[in-house]
């Protein structure tokens, strides 16, 4: 037994609605998994200050932290902005495109949403 998403015109079925926060977390996990992404924006401070453990976004939410991602869901679509940190040796344009694609795939697969994804590369670590 599980939730079934209402199809167009259907009534009586349970509607699955995925909210902003959940979308943000799905996007964050997907973004962090992209090769070339060192961390998301919230870890920028630690990344710049060289604090150990920064790469895995250690905060109170652990691996599901959505810091660095903002998401807004409307209807069957989501607008997502992801702020990332990458490193020298990667291609910023290509990493950003890969993040857009990874987030789109994740949101389509896990939340049934079309995503418009915009990536901001906030920093490029030089060491």
């Amino acid at each position, binding site marked *: 037994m599980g939730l079934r998403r209402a199809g167009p015109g259907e009534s009586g079925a349970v509607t699955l609605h995925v909210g902003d926060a959940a979308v943000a977390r799905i996007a964050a996990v997907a973004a962090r998994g992209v090769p070339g992404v060192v961390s998301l924006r919230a870890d920028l401070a630690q990344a710049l*200050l060289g604090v150990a453990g920064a790469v895995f976004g250690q905060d109170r939410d652990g691996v599901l932290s959505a810091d660095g991602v903002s998401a807004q869901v409307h209807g069957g679509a989501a607008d997502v902005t992801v702020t990332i940190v990458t490193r020298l040796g990667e291609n*910023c344009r290509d990493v950003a495109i890969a993040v857009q694609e990874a987030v789109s795939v994740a949101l389509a697969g896990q939340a049934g949403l079309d995503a418009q994804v915009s990536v901001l*590369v906030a920093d*490029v670590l030089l060491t």
Partner: protein
Amino acid sequence: MALEKLLACGRDATAAWDRAVAGAGPDEHESGCRHCRAARADALGLDAVVHRMAAQPVEAPPSVIDRVMTAVVGELRPHDVLLLPSPHGPNRLSRPAAAAVLRSVVDGMDGLRARSCRIEQSERESEDDAAVGSAVDVAVTVTGRFGIDLASVTARVRQMVVAAGEQALGVPVSRVDIDVVDLWD
């Protein structure tokens, strides 16, 4: 109020003090003048303890820099961006981050250090979203080791900046201005 502080004999007090603590012996006037002798005694008497205080080492607490940098980074708002082309809609790259990448490329070249790095992205009208605003003009100032062949080195810098634009940033570089602003040894 007198503008220059004078001793009662008319001599400049500050200059007399500075001479005394610098180790200069009393000149002919000073040897015979009670005002100057008193002033010199004051100067030499204070100088010893002042020197002792000045010699005491004072270390800045190590945590200050950490707190400063936390505040600095916390205030960073990457609004200053370049557009990165993408078939899914343009992405953005912090301009200071891009500039730091190009500077590090120049720094990696023997005999050169980058100083200023300005990146301008022309607004291009394009029907193709993927090409929106992509090509950049770069203007760098560098300092170089005295004796390097400036002409060949700047040609090399141009090649490196164009390569870094494409490989590291992912934007085409259409112009590179290089200004050698200083030399060092």
